């Protein structure tokens, strides 16, 4: 029972959605399933939020390393939760949009969330620079091709490439960086992308079939668990 019902559920739901693709009266199923997913995800978030609170409380009570920052995390979490769920300061009252402009909730987003998020993201620029100095080595033929292609793209993506090869005569203009750039993108890159995409498609189909047919059932768990 513990394993059979989940298996049947997976099997029936999965194949119904596959069949629905071919049947106009059923094709809204996929859309409705997505709503189901959203609803289930909210319940799961209760578990996730609870986990976050629990972990940080443990950290504080046991005075683990950096426990002071756990307080900051909890305060931030509950602060946003309260102004969000109770719609504090929302001009539309309890029926207003939760993230309507002008609410404290929106302000937190604009003044904390956006700058921190964008800055975290831009740290990547620095990491890339250090990786290109320390990690990107032409260790073998494959890596060399990767690096050359990357350099052409980086050059071609800015005016730098145009300036660098502007002297090349028109008859040989295929060797100008912007043209090389387009050529690389639209031929070898396209071929590689396509092979990857077709491969992924087959991989997903085979994987999905294994799951739906119950050949792969690690998500179902073990009896009596």
């Amino acid at each position, binding site marked *: 029972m513990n394993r059979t019902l989940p298996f049947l559920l997976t099997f029936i739901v999965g194949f119904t959605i596959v069949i629905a693709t071919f049947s106009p009266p059923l094709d809204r199923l996929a859309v409705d399933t997505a709503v189901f997913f959203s609803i*289930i995800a909210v319940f799961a*978030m209760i578990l996730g939020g609870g986990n976050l609170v629990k972990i940080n409380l443990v950290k504080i009570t046991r005075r683990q390393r950096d426990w002071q920052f756990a307080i900051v995390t909890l305060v931030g979490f509950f602060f946003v939760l309260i102004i969000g769920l109770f719609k504090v300061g929302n001009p539309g009252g309890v029926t207003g949009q939760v993230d309507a402009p002008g609410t404290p909730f929106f302000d937190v987003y604009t003044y904390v969330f956006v700058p921190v998020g964008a*800055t975290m993201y831009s740290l990547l620029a*620095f990491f890339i620079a250090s990786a290109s100095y320390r990690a990107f080595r032409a260790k073998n033929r494959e890596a060399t091709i990767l690096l050359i292609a990357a350099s052409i*793209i980086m050059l071609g*993506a800015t005016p730098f490439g145009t300036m660098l090869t502007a002297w090349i005569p028109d008859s040989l203009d295929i060797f100008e960086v912007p043209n090389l750039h387009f050529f690389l993108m639209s031929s070898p890159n396209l071929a590689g992308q396509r092979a990857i995409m077709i491969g992924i498609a087959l991989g997903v189909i085979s994987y*999905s079939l294994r*799951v739906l047919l119950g050949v792969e059932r690690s998500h*179902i768990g073990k009896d009596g668990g």
Partner: protein
Amino acid sequence: MSLDIGVWIGALLTLGIFSFLYRDNPFYKLCESIFVGVSAGYWFCVFFFDNMVRKFYFGVFPSEAGIEPKYFLIVGAVLGALMLTRLIPSIGWISRWPLSFIVGATAGLYMMLFFVSNGLNQVADTMLPLYRETAGGDFDPAETLGTILVFIGTFTGLIYFFFSKEHKGLFGGAARVGIFFLMVTFGAAFGYTVMSRMSLLIGRMDFLFRDWLGLLG
């Protein structure tokens, strides 16, 4: 220099995060902790109102007259509520039901989606003549070369992914050609990613120098 308190908070947080580049420090940890807590709370609220209130509640109890209630959504809510059985260890296994539902739906949906867009259509689009002419009817060397490369690359790339044959001999050679094409693809991805990340950094710098310090026109 800006007089807007929001810009100031943003700028200080930006500098706090950037300080991590020098080394891990309390200023960074503070920004990080704020971010983790605030973002978890933020997404919780957004998901709650969007999914539970708007989709579920107003789906079952429509706010406007004349709209048919979607009672079947209650099944979704019941499945969701079953997730909470995890809080009681002895019946926690019931949470496998909603999980099984999600796994089945995802597998079924993606199977078709990938089959059509990633699989079939890409195969169809590779079927082009290896001899190309310009609009004027002359031989077009660039297009011809391009099509030939796309064909060879796609073909050998697929060979690389074969699982049921050892990469040896002619087959292995073809797989090797395939991996070269994959490497160009990854190189292109690398180049474009550098471009993207640099743009974000430019955006932050622009914020600091223009919006905060007012040094740029």
